[in-house]
């Protein structure tokens, strides 16, 4: 799998969104999981919670660090990856697959225009991302 798959959209806070019609699946990028190191705890909203673009919606913790999660897009949480409670390391092993975090029913799909494409995100990592 590509390090930054072309079909995803990216935030400056290192989340990805896979837009599927009116819904978006959300996770953190390869870069984010690599920077964090071993993820040992993930705190996610409940189904039905509202999330707002670029506002925090949860927390991911590695052995050494606590990091806020930022919503790539606004909407209502319709699915939560419960498997991460028992196996948070999936975020490291498969950040774009079984390490997904939530699925959001979008309230404003036009917000996607503010997100980066894969080439844009990779360019961002080269310039500002490694801060």
């Amino acid at each position, binding site marked *: 799998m590509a390090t930054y798959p072309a079909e995803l959209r990216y935030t400056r806070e290192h989340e990805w969104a896979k837009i599927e019609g009116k819904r978006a699946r959300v996770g953190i990028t390869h870069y984010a999981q690599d920077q964090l*190191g*071993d993820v*040992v705890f993930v*705190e996610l909203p409940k189904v039905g919670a509202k999330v707002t673009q670029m506002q925090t919606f949860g*927390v991911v913790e590695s*052995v*050494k660090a*606590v990091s806020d999660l930022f919503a790539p897009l606004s909407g209502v949480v319709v699915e939560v990856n419960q498997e991460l409670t028992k196996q948070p390391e999936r975020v490291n092993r498969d950040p774009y697959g079984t390490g997904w975090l939530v699925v959001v029913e979008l309230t404003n799909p036009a917000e996607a225009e503010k997100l980066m494409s894969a080439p844009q995100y990779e360019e961002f990592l080269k310039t500002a991302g490694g801060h």
Partner: protein
Amino acid sequence: MSQPETPLKRTPLHAAHVRLGARMIPFGGWDMPVQYAGIVEEHRTVRSSVGCFDVSHMGEFEFRGPDALRLLQRLTTNDVSTLEIGQVQYSLLCYENGGIVDDLTLYRLADDHYMMTVNASNIDKDWAWVSRHLDGRVDARNVSEETGLIAVQGPHAERLVGRLSDVDVPAIGYYHFRRGRVAGVSGIVSRTGYTGEDGFELYLPGAGTEEVWERLLAEGKPDGTAPIGLGARDTLRLEMKYALYGNDIDETTNPLEAGLGWVVKPAKGPFLGRDAIERVRAAGPSRRLVGFEMVERAVARHGYPILHDGASVGVVTSGSYGPSVDRYIGIGYVPPSLAAAGSAIAVEVRGRGHAARVVKTPFHPPRVKR
């Protein structure tokens, strides 16, 4: 708030860490490896096989002369008169008010010759403290710069060190040491560590440290030997409830509340901090350092409040996920009334109390050689 830019110090193994692809971080003024393969994997390597740690950043002071014993009896809390040649003692330096200057290990190298190993971030402070109290016929030297230190820890450590050393390694008892060669380099082979596993700490001349490091990793490869960073060093020691200076103990904590009364020996005679510590003993400590595990899922971290009945009653001093116990664990100070195993407490994480309970420690059974 910006810190003045001082260049980070490097151990003799710095280039080796970079070649191994370690992630480097600043630690106590040093540029140190926090992880190589990953903290959890490295932690498991030490519990199941053997891992090599660069701890060359730690400090070493030597004391030699007819008054060395008298000086060390006054400086440290443990009874140095019981220390035999070839033996190691865990001990403390304390201020007059009973606060802890540092925790340390003390080696008796010969009749009138001792070596003290101190924490890296405290070398300058400790050396200033020691120098201030120098007295009598003692030659004290700070040999930190020229001394390398590699910890080899894990159930296969004896086999690995034994293969590379001319010392009778299996004959070395826990908290004992012998002088000899490892991979051809002369040094001290000490059966000590900070992981709860059997293992050794190898004191080496700085110039020979890299040779020993390379040979350990090469020789141990078939056994799964791997380099281990500071990240796993921290989770390994946390599962043992070994105190970390700057986190769990510091100048504001006294040895009794920290659970280190076993290295305070008031009967040996006067020493720095004795009177203050004995006043605490008479009154009873006002708080105790305990281990706890989270009942509600959350990671407790240094500085988080400990709650009881909704009120803040203490503070977390260390906390993490414990890979070998597969739980979120921590240590912290609580009132004596909540110090018994089973006591219900809570830890405030992101503004909300999360249930926890005091448990017996160590969290994971130690397997040091007795």
